[in-house]
């Protein structure tokens, strides 16, 4: 049993991964503190109760990242000769589901409130002997929870493609859902102040549609991921990952003895596993020893091409075989 590959990340990616871990710990601490703050201010306002539950759901992706991405980077062993890279896919599915659930929950709450014509009321809040309108501390609490979410999300969105972590990407989407939902709640509070009791539910309902669309998109991506669909780019999942094709062309260009190359890859968490099919230019002239050396050359060239190419199986094949990929 030869375990596949060694380290998960080269230096740059390792740095990004460490930075991401720090960000996620900060996220967990921050959401927990925001949840406590909101609980204290919540009063009987529906908007605030909803925000508090949202915070709980928002904790799922950071925890998924901290647990799953840590598992994913473990070196392969006899027990797990392929390593445990797919832990990232599990974390991604979990986080995407959390995002979808958040959107559905918001939509349900908003719909019920509008259907039952439940009116939001915001009265007084006494602090240090002064009674002020309770909407003001609510807005402060929402700003405290919403504004950092915005910036944390953006930082994560920039980091995710660096080491190709989909859980981090899903968490960035969750942060976005968070600050949008909190903005909707803030609009609801102000609307209530102007006597528009329904503003709460309408704003939350509209935002929830966007979140549901986001969540659904990510759940589909996570599911197709798990059934080894052709890899797509991290952030813009509408485009195919160009790496397989690029590698094939690179090999054809740089290695003399390669007449034609085709590459088939599947994503395992951060990295790619795959097969390279090589048609040698003049197979008859290659001795067994030369063939083995040439194949090692291909392997080295491929792995240096991109850090994400974690392990490849190189197969020399006959010319006509590449028109119809072999099934093993």
């Amino acid at each position, binding site marked *: 049993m030869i375990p596949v590959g060694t380290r998960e990340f080269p230096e740059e990616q390792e740095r990004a991964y460490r930075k991401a871990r720090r960000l996620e710990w900060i996220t967990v601490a921050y959401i927990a503190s925001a949840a406590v703050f909101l609980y204290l201010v919540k009063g009987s306002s529906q908007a605030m109760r909803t925000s508090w539950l949202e915070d709980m759901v928002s904790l799922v992706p950071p925890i998924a990242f901290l647990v799953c991405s840590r598992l994913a980077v473990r070196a392969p062993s006899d027990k797990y000769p392929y390593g445990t890279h797919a832990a990232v896919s599990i974390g991604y599915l979990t986080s995407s589901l959390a995002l979808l659930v958040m959107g559905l929950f918001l939509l349900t709450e908003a719909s019920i409130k509008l259907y039952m014509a439940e009116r939001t009321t*915001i*009265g007084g809040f006494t602090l240090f002997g002064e*009674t002020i309108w309770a909407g003001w501390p609510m807005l402060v609490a929402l700003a405290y929870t919403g504004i950092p979410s915005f910036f944390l999300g953006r930082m994560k969105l920039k980091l995710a493609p660096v080491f190709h972590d989909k859980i981090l990407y899903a968490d960035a989407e969750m942060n976005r859902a968070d600050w949008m939902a909190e903005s909707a709640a803030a609009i609801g509070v102000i609307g209530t102040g102007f006597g528009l009791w329904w503003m709460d539910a309408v704003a939350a309902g509209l935002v929830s549609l966007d979140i549901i669309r986001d969540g659904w998109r990510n759940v589909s991506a996570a599911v197709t991921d798990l059934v080894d669909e052709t890899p797509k780019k991290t952030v813009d999942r509408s485009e195919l990952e160009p790496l397989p094709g690029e590698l094939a062309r690179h090999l054809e260009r740089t290695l003399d003895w390669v007449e034609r190359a085709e590459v088939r890859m599947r994503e395992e968490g951060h990295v790619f596993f795959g097969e390279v099919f090589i048609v040698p230019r003049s197979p008859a002239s290659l001795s067994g020893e030369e063939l083995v050396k040439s194949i090692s050359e291909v392997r080295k060239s491929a792995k240096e091409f991109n850090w994400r190419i974690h392990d490849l199986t190189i197969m020399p094949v006959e010319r006509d075989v590449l028109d119809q990929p072999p099934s093993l």
Partner: protein
Amino acid sequence: MTGARLAAVLLSLWLGSCDFPRDADGTLDRIQSERVLRVGISERPPWVLMRNGAPAGIEPRLVRAFADSLNARIAWTRGAEGSLIAALRERALDLVIGGFDASSHWASDVAATQPYVETSVILAAPEGRSAERDGAAIQYPSQRIAFAALIAQNDQRPEPVARPGAATAAIYDFEAEPFDLVPTGTDLTRERLVMFVAPGESRFLFALDRFLASRTRAEILRAEGTP
């Protein structure tokens, strides 16, 4: 940062001057223009009770002062809690009182004030008397049936009386002096009292919250002298 603070101050001043927050149904404006405050009452002594055919107790006294501040007279409606809450939701009433606790399930159907007072139900004994003997009955004012349950939960035997004072009794902490009893140190439960207004009426609720917060605890709980 000073730019933002200045903007916040100006915003509050502007909003404060243009009736912020507002009522969804214009309750406060209507009360001030029609000079009538429609109040629903459900009895729960000492918070709300009837005396000589008129509402009396801690909350009616507060509500009368509130109505005075609005230059309005009061139209009282007696009823069961459920009916009053239903009427409040339909905005047939402006305010409902009944010694409601903040944890009351009615709070999810209507809008509640902040708790305007916090109090404990305690066990108190006549001066000089030692702690209650095992198995001895604990007295409670006969109209406060809920106290009987509290006493029973404390593994003691409840005994209704017209007026406590003769033996160890379950009373509110602020009633110890009027009834000439000394707290024994046992708390049966804590209560946080609220009043209810119609959902959506934020301006009216805010005015009521401000009024209630402006009263001290002593003013609110001035002895009524009745069970």
